[in-house]
């Protein structure tokens, strides 16, 4: 009896204290903290799972032992899909936060759904998807989420979801209601285009959601870099998360080069170290992509990883990953942050995977390499006006995801095409990595498709296991002298045969896939792999062909692997979840062995990493299934969640 009374007294005291806190000036903060403390749900509140781009979930309910029982929990179709001239590309990673799953669509809508049923809570349409497609078409890679550290009770927009459009607008809406935040920009919309005044050839594409650090959004964008010599310079913006006001800018292009070149933008995601406040910007190549004769001056921030202070944009360090990039091997994924345990010390590091198949492992506070990076000599250009860099960074360790030379010609593809593949290859310039583009045609190995694609890798920060998918794809780069380009293509900016004008420079450009007359790859498989590394030692744990090629519905052997677009996510439970492959399947893989333990067909290739979360004690794995015309023509609008049966 005494114990019961004591308990009742304690409960009453606790309730009174809670009420007092709620009503106090600090009530809102306290309430927020209490709610957060009460919740045991594991969130996925950023594109990369967290701001460190680790794509990691602490969820342990789904394990290698029970994953075979994984079933579809719910599936919805957003309706936002189209093909043809207004083709959609949907590589969004949903967020789970605020007890809601948020996803952006390629028609620039935010759809908020219940995490356990997929039932829609609200939807917001940013508009602008019905006009002529801008430079990148209709694309989206998701949304960003910000919550006030000290929310003001009863006021809207203390939690905001952001979506960008391919017309250069950033919209901010209340996370609970989907209503525009009047205090953000002009009635909830920031016109980012208005900030870009130099060489603005087209509206910038806000394909990738911004990174969030405290009250700052860090925003890059996508655009063209094949069409003109001087494209839009690739400015990165630091934006006030509440008001949309511009706080700072970062430019990879030196001011005195802006009449010669452009872009070097950040179109991939950005990671942030929450402890130091450093943001890590993966920058792309300058324009025009494939001829650098007009931009010979060194631009150290282009095709680089640049660390800036997230609140000011001040550059702390940078490391160029490709000198004088004439291959369009943009740095295409957010660096993944890792604390490496090496020689009894903890090294704050990052892993920058690249299209070249290298894993640059750098001290994230200084930019110094954890394992040595070599400068190796590479071939000179034979194109008039072009001067290829004499050396390029080479990362011997950890082992690159792809070999230094392209695979041999596929005998099968060669025989069935009556020797087309081998004859074609013999005509091309082929000197391995960094063979410069040429007028006769060069094999670019690896090419613009990677190597590692824009999702990057995933890290289990407990075991420091890093899992990354990689393509094995050579392509053919041919420079077309301006006179010939004008004669053949007139004033076209692009053509279906892979031509891009590079207007204003001495050469147009043609990108061709190395396929035979039947559309078969001219090189030997595998075409894609999945690899695992121990990042404490840098050792490769395993590397396996990943996915399956599917052509006309026919699945090719698993040993051939697949070209992949998208990335993995890993769990504490020992699983790696990944879509990404051409065969429209999502898979669960044993992170320890690389063995596929479960697979499921979805509506099209799931070209983004999944989100993994727990809600009311249940673990969900959610894929946005949208497809990408690079892989297959099959596009979709499916958001699908998987969970173990009750």
């Amino acid at each position, binding site marked *: 009896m005494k114990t019961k009374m004591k308990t009742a007294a304690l409960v009453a005291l606790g309730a009174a204290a809670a009420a007092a806190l709620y009503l106090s000036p600090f009530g809102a903060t306290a309430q927020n903290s209490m709610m957060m403390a009460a919740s045991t749900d594991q969130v996925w509140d950023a594109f990369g799972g967290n701001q460190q781009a680790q794509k990691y979930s602490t969820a342990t309910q789904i394990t290698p032992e029970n994953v075979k029982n994984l079933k579809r929990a719910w599936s919805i179709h957003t309706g936002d899909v189209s093909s043809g001239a207004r083709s959609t590309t949907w590589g969004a990673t949903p967020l789970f936060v605020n007890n809601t799953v948020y996803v952006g669509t390629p028609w620039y809508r935010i759809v908020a759904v219940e995490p356990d049923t997929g039932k829609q809570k609200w939807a917001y349409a940013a508009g602008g998807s019905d006009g002529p497609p801008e430079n990148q078409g209709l694309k989206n890679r998701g949304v960003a989420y910000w919550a006030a550290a000290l929310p003001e009770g009863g006021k809207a927009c203390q939690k905001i979801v952001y979506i960008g459009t391919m017309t250069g607008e950033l919209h901010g809406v209340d996370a609970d209601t989907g209503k525009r935040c009047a205090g953000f920009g002009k009635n909830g919309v920031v016109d980012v285009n208005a900030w870009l005044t130099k060489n603005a050839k087209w509206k910038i594409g806000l394909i990738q959601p911004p990174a969030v650090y405290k009250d700052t959004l860090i925003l890059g964008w996508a655009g063209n870099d094949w069409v003109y010599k001087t494209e839009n310079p690739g400015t990165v913006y630091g934006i006030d998360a509440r008001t949309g006001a511009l706080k700072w800018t970062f430019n990879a292009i030196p001011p005195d080069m802006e009449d010669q070149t452009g872009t070097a933008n950040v179109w991939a995601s950005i990671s942030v170290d929450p402890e130091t406040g450093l943001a890590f910007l993966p920058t792309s190549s300058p324009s025009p992509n494939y001829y650098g004769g007009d931009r010979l001056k060194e631009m150290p921030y282009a095709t680089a990883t640049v660390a800036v202070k997230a609140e000011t944009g001040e550059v702390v360090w940078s490391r160029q990953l490709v000198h004088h990039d004439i291959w369009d091997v943009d740095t295409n994924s957010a660096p993944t942050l890792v604390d490496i345990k090496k020689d009894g010390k903890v090294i704050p590091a990052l892993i920058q995977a690249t299209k070249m198949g290298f894993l640059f492992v750098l001290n994230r506070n200084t930019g110094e390499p954890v394992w040595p990076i070599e400068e190796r000599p590479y071939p000179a250009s034979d194109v008039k006006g072009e001067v290829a860099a004499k050396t390029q960074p080479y990362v011997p360790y950890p082992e690159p995801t792809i070999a230094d030379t392209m695979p041999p010609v596929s005998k099968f593809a060669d025989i069935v095409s009556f020797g087309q593949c081998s004859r074609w290859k013999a005509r091309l310039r082929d000197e391995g990595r960094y063979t410069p583009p040429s007028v006769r045609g060069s094999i670019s190995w690896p090419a613009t498709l990677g190597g590692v694609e824009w999702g990057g890798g995933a890290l289990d920060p407990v075991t420091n296991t890093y899992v990354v998918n990689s393509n094995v794809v050579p392509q053919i780069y041919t420079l077309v002298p301006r006179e010939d380009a004008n004669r053949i293509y007139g004033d076209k900016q692009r053509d279906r045969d892979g031509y891009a004008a590079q207007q204003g420079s001495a050469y147009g450009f043609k990108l061709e896939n190395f396929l035979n007359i039947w559309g078969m790859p001219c090189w030997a498989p595998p075409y894609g792999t999945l690899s695992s590394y121990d990042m404490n030692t840098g050792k490769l744990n395993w590397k396996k062909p990943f996915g399956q090629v599917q052509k*006309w519905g026919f*699945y*090719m052997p698993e040993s051939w692997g697949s070209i992949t677009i998208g990335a993995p996510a890993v769990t504490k439970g020992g699983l790696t979840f990944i879509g990404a492959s051409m*065969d429209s399947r999502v898979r669960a893989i044993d992170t320890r062995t690389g063995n596929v333990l479960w697979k499921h*067909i979805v509506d099209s290739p799931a070209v983004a990493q999944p989100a993994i979360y727990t809600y009311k004690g249940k673990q969900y794995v959610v894929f946005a299934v949208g497809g990408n015309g690079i892989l297959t023509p099959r596009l979709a609008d499916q958001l699908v969640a998987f969970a173990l049966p009750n």
Partner: protein
Amino acid sequence: MTQPHSTRGAWLIVLASLIAMAICVYDYYTPETGLIGTGGVVLVACAALLMLLASLAMAKFPNRSPLLQTFLVVSIILDIIGSSVAGYFLESPVIMAAQALALVGWLMNVIGNAADRSVETDEVEDED
């Protein structure tokens, strides 16, 4: 110059072709199959249609020339082989099962036909 041929197994092949066509239509229009809108299932559907016509001819016209009989038997087995390979690469167990069913029908027909020929020969010998 026609002569009677066995119709045994022909209806089984008809059934197998219909199953193959039905699954192809389902696969072609259903996203969850992974084969939606693919040329591979169209190919198998066309092959199944040809097999259906051949097996119907086999069932409905027992009196046919040896040349036509040979054509039907050979074309059906080639169809079965081709569709089985396609079914394997489409990773469609139903298409492969339908081909197995068709193969049973084909074997029944071929064996039945051989048996009939043997009986006819015996009868001729008895008459001698």
